[in-house]
């Protein structure tokens, strides 16, 4: 999504959260329609189990309802805030079940059986966005990309990521920083 459109969307979603904070169930349903698919997909990526991903999604939306009043627009954008809640919920499930974190790469995930059929990608715009992000990810050096994937989807702490990658913690932090900034920069360039 181009930066301007995303900002407008974030503003609308912040308004939805403020309405949810007042007990507005229609706003809650609207937010569900906007966020449920990407959050469920994130849950599938992290938990690799449809039933668990669905339960995590439900837990996350109950938390969004309960915590909407504490949402602070200065701290994060609405979707990032929701992603953080979903990721923490998934991480709790991974740890509770003493499961090993997901270690497949993004490419593996895309090829796996739960990956989306092409028919679900409804619009050209969505395909363009996916292609744009894929291109940006491809441009990141493999070790930085791996660190980023582990940071985003595995539930590992950065210390555990360092152990997993057999690298000093400082090196992993540097990879994460460079990876995030390169991704951000590439996506901004593509959006222009």
């Amino acid at each position: 999504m181009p930066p301007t459109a995303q900002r407008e969307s974030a503003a609308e979603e912040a308004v939805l959260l403020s309405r949810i904070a007042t007990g507005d169930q229609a706003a809650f349903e609207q937010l569900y329609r906007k966020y449920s698919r990407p959050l469920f997909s994130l849950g599938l990526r992290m938990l690799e189990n449809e039933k668990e991903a669905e339960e995590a999604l439900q837990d996350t939306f109950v938390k969004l309802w309960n915590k909407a009043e504490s949402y602070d627009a200065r701290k994060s954008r609405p979707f990032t805030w929701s992603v953080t809640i979903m990721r923490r919920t998934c991480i709790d499930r991974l740890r509770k079940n003493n499961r090993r974190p997901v270690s497949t790469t993004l490419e593996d995930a895309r090829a796996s059986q739960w990956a989306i059929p092409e028919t679900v990608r409804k619009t050209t715009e969505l395909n363009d966005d996916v292609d744009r992000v894929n291109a940006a990810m491809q441009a990141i050096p493999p070790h930085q990309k791996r660190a980023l994937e582990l940071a985003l989807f595995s539930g590992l702490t950065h210390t555990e990521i360092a152990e997993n990658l057999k690298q000093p913690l400082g090196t992993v932090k540097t990879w994460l920083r460079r990876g995030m900034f390169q991704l951000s920069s590439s996506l901004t360039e593509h959006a222009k």
Partner: protein
Amino acid sequence: MNVTTEELASLYVLDKLDPAQLRAFEARLQVDTDLLQLVRGLESALEDQIRALPQREPPGASFERIKSQIRPREPVPLKDKVVSIPWISLMGWGMAAILLLGLGLTFILTSERHPPASGSNPVVLVVGMDAQSNQWKTIPLASATDASESFAQLAVLAEELWKNPGHLPGYSNEPNPANTRSSGYTVFNPASKHGFIAIQQLPRPVAGKHYYLWVKDPFSNRLECAGLIPLQDADHGLYSFALSQDSEITSDRVVFFITEESSDDPTWTRPRGRPVLGTDHI
């Protein structure tokens, strides 16, 4: 932005900061527009990554299951909510915020909601500060019915002391032993962890530096940054602050001090710069 700040911002967006770093970083986000811009760019990249994952719709009955788990709230008309200051969540703070704005106070730094003061003998800690010391005084606080009332009481007291500094502990109109006239005071409710800090005649920080407010429990040695003080064109001001709800500072006897920190070293976990007001010891 330097590399340390960029690293903290990346870890913040990836939700990899430890609790102390997170509190400090979020406090800085409240006042640092450049940092906020940086974080927004990284958040955008993260969001794009999530949306570019293979997408699947959740099962159709999911939303009904969620609805069965939420507790309906009594709808509140939006017009009764105060949301006009974007970086502060004021919902639930309506009356207190209106009162504060009416008093002409500057309302800054973090403002998370906290429960009202609890216990049978609530007190407010008043700490007078000069360049070398803290002087304490406790004032009984009337029981508040809710957090807003507790906050408003604190604001009224802070402003009262601003008008009548003679009531401050250790007040003197003479230059202090460090030969400066810089002074300040803090009113702090240990139960709600809200406070106000007032500053008088504090020179502006040199270019590239900022003043940070620190809170320390001298008995447990726990230390936290309460935020950045945005002294702009004035050498004085009255500011609100709040420790986070999960702050480990629980003592009702704490010290406050202000240091001048380099913008290039924004770790927010330990003061590294020159102390300019108050002290970190008794």
